[in-house]
């Protein structure tokens, strides 16, 4: 049990990232592709936080515990992931705005039909 647990979070992060990439590449609808991109991003969140975890540790927030009384997890990766989630949401919004524009100009959201650049 000990050896599986050492590497499981990284493998799950890799699996989520690969699943997102597969969905992105084989998508027949651009909105579905944007959803798959956010799944890819979720993979990176899991990897970042798995790197920062420490066994039997708690969150580095000392509003309700005395500092130094319990081992804490790595706050730097949490700060990176935190801002990444909000920026990821606004980038998803920008991509959806682009998809709406493509639908308006080309009348379709299927990437295979968008062969020539127009509009």
């Amino acid at each position, binding site marked *: 049990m000990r050896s599986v647990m050492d590497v499981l979070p990284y493998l799950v992060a890799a699996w989520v990232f690969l699943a997102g990439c597969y969905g992105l590449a084989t998508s027949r609808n651009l909105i579905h592709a944007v959803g798959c991109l956010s799944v890819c991003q979720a993979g990176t969140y899991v990897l970042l936080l798995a790197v920062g975890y420490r066994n039997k540790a*708690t*969150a580095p*927030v000392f*509003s*309700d*515990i005395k500092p130094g009384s319990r081992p804490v997890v790595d706050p730097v990766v949490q700060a990176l992931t935190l801002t990444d989630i909000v920026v990821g949401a606004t980038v998803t919004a920008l991509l959806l705005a682009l998809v709406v524009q493509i639908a308006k100009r080309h009348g379709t959201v299927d990437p295979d039909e968008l062969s020539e650049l127009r509009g």
Partner: protein
Amino acid sequence: MNGWLLAATVGLAGGLGAALWGVATGPLRRRVVAQNLSTALACPSLLLLSQAYNRPSYVDLGLVLALLGPVGTLVFARLLADELAEDPPRAWGLTWTVAGLGAAAVTALCVATGPSRAMVKLLVIGALLISGNAIASRALSGGFRGVRGG
């Protein structure tokens, strides 16, 4: 062996596993109900985890989920009003059992924390959660009739 952690693990594995299976397969009306129940089950689990890790500050997560979970379901109820109009979801039994589970979890936590401001906070979160999910399932089963989905 932390009893709270065991309860949270069982709640997560059973509840969210079933919700995920419900949202992945079946007709649209069952998927929407499964999404609504996923938040109704995750919030008590978060509160149980907060008690299991002996960290009162984790309760804010349960507060935000109790507030925004039903809002997410209202988004789907409103924007899928046309598709749901033909066979509106009728899942009152399931909704009330999950609300009962949530209420049981919140009362157990209140007993554990003892009479204090933290207990009032837990009660507020429990009230928000149960009313939110009742309203969300009410909205799903035909709350937006006259809406052209807009």
